[in-house]
């Protein structure tokens, strides 16, 4: 019989190494999966790990998808570190997109490029408002934030469907449930010609630096994390748990909302029912695979983005289903949890009687 025994001192090297090991295991299971599907495993892996970085354009596409994941994950990491379980980043992302889209729709042919700033700020505000509902209910009625934030995702989806199918529907849109295409002035500025990489990447990198400073170099960030690690110590120190709740949810809501704004005013260019792409949920995996560390999340966001692109490649080039993306995401999270368990515990073989 196998038994788990707690290790007296978990290896600190392996606690960082375990995401890499988990990736390795994911690749191995992936190979087995391709073989079982009757496909060449090398070609399958190529789709996921080589095609997305084969040239500048591909890397650009990789970054386009990694950017919203990273921005959302940065906010979620603050939440998770302070013991606030915001599972509803997807909803905050959608409402952020709606707010940003609403501002973008106000623009006309004469509007200048300055409109991009209010578009992004509206996104941030939208995300904050949506996360604020969760914070308010938790604060006033001690409602469970996991349930509230998750349920609000589905409310947000309905709000979006209503708007694009009703008041905001494009009159010249052949009755498709979507808004008109935003004016060119509202488009998030791109960094280079011939690539869709926008200033969102720059904002994300600034976010990484800002988050690192906030978490590890400011008292406010410290207080927030103590609330997550040891609530009684936080009360003893006099850190306000209400403030921590609101700060964490405002930061993560704002981040998710910003990601929503960058998407609708960037690659998408209009509001459609297909705005929610699951980034809000995938970002939870990004946050954990990145060890809730700002720098770690850069790598995990890129990895998760590879899975998205690889899934699409595998569909178009190898005739495999796109669900492979979800399978790979799930495999990675699963292997990571298994590796983490083995970092903290060791397996002991116990002879049966």
């Amino acid at each position, binding site marked *: 019989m196998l038994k788990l025994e707690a290790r*007296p*001192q978990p290896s600190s090297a392996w606690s960082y190494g375990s995401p890499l090991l988990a990736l390795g295991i994911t690749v191995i299971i992936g190979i087995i999966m391709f073989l079982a599907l009757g496909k060449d495993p090398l070609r399958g892996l190529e789709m996921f790990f080589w095609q997305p970085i084969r040239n500048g354009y591909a890397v650009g596409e990789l970054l386009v998808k990694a950017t919203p994941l990273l921005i959302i994950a940065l906010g979620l990491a603050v939440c998770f570190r302070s013991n606030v379980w915001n599972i509803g980043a997807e909803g905050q992302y959608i409402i952020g997109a709606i707010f940003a889209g609403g501002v973008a729709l106000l623009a006309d042919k004469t509007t200048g490029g300055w409109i991009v700033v209010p578009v992004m700020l509206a996104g941030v505000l939208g995300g904050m408002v949506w996360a604020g509902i969760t914070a308010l209910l938790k604060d006033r009625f001690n409602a469970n934030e996991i349930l509230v934030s998750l349920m609000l995702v589905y409310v947000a989806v309905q709000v979006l469907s209503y708007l694009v199918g009703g008041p905001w529907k494009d009159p010249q849109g052949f009755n498709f449930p979507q808004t008109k295409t935003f004016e060119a002035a509202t488009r998030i500025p791109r960094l280079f010609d011939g690539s869709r990489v926008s200033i969102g990447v720059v904002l994300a990198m600034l976010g990484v630096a800002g988050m690192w400073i906030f978490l*590890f*170099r*400011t*008292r*406010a960030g*410290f207080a927030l994390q*103590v609330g997550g*690690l*040891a609530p*009684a*110590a936080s*009360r*003893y*120190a*006099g850190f*306000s748990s209400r403030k921590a709740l609101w700060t964490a949810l405002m930061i993560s809501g704002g981040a998710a909302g910003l990601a929503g704004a960058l998407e609708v005013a960037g690659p998408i260019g209009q509001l459609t029912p297909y705005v929610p792409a699951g980034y809000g949920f995938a970002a939870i995996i990004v946050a954990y695979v990145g060890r809730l560390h700002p720098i770690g999340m850069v790598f995990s966001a890129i990895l998760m983005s590879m899975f998205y692109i690889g899934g699409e490649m595998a569909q178009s080039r190898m005739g495999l289903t796109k669900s492979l993306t979800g399978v790979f995401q799930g495999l990675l999270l699963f292997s990571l949890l298994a590796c983490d368990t083995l970092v903290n515990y060791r397996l002991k073989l*116990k002879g049966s009687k």
Partner: protein
Amino acid sequence: MTTPRLQLSGITKRYPSVVANSEVSLTVMPGETHAVLGENGAGKSTLMKIIYGSVKPDEGSVMFNGQPVHIRNPQEARAMGISMVFQHFSLFDTITVAENVWLGLSKTLTLDEVTHSITAKAQEYGLDIDPARPVHTLSVGEMQRVEIIRALLTNPKLLILDEPTSVLTPQAVEKLFVVLKKLASEGCSILYISHKLHEIRELCTACTVLRGGKVTGVCNPGEESNASLSKLMIGAEPPQLTHREQKPGLPVLTVNRLALPREDQFGVDLDGISLQVRAGEVVGIAGVSGNGQKELLYALSGEDVRSPAGSVRMGEVDMSRLHPGGRRKLGLHFVPEERLGRGAVPTLGLAHNLLLTRNNALSKSGWIRVKALEAQAADIIRRFNVKAGGPNSVARSLSGGNLQKFIVGREIDANPKLLIVSQPTWGVDVGAAAQIRGEILELRDKGCAVLVVSEELDELFELSDRLHVIAKGRLSPSVPIGEATIERIGEWMSGLWHEEVQAHLANMAVEATHAEA
């Protein structure tokens, strides 16, 4: 010759960083109360876990009733008749006493039967407990009673007790000893782990002394002196404290008729608590745990800010409604009872744990200056002789005594005007305890007002200038330490000071009219 109940020989257990037990042998006869004496970290707990089956030895053999055994887990140990009461309780907070006990017993019993047998055992041995209460509402002392009852319910042949008296009053210790002596006379062997020498000398008939994982002596404690035992245990005699006479100065902390309804339904209502701590004196509060100490300390530290306006003052400032941070600015520093999780964040380094109560390494805007923070931690580690890997060792990795030294050091280093300490030396080894008490007295001599809440009377008698007793949410009048006796304080712990309360109140009224005139 009778067969020994338990015989260990050549037990060795190595951990990656330390050898916890090296070639340890131990023999316990039936009906014998056998002490295992040693400082924290001497390997007592590991040895007991080996006997109880929760840790496997690397080498050595265990014989139980003359038969060689390999105890693979606590269930097997219990089935053989070995029960253990741990120093750190293994109770689930969110369920009731009866449900906790139920979990460890055979599944064929119903909850009602378990509740009945708890009440029966409790009565038989005089251990008062309500089986329907959730565990998180119990005080430390009450949790221990639950653990003891749980152990007794299995009708053990060998009972292991790990530091059982660290949270009990003298009367409760005596009661416990009656229970233990009764058990021993019924033929149950007892392994009694402690570092309290007088208890061992009173209770035990044999003693094995451990130091650094090795046996340093086997003796009959009745024939030894405290000095000879402590020499075996720590290799030296414990330092003596000097308590200098001092005239106390102005009042620093004044609590005036503080009444506070309980925050959770199993808490204690505070009722008309009045006390004063002046500069340069140590005031002690004795009492059995669960009589309002927790609630009073929350109200004093600012973790509970519901106190009526004017009821808690620091000097002339009303701080009833101030949060902990505000009170700290007035010079109030507090060492809580729970080290891990309240006094320190277990997974953070010592340096970062400074930030809970100290702002020295912060800039005005809240920026953490890491170098300054680490230097400050290193300074406290050096000054208070804390054994730690360095300023960035996580709090969890320190032994209880060393972490307590660090937390006490953190608060003393802030040069407080008022230091409130709860259970300053609970579960702390002799050397560290003596050092912490010495630091508290030194602080008092420098003119700091000190309030010590403890359940260890020896400690209070050693430290205090005046002593209060708390019982059922009320506070007794204070007695100067010279006039206090163990018997009197023990009686007060059950709330029997009423006549004296009346006299005291009358005196206060007279004094008040005099003051007004």
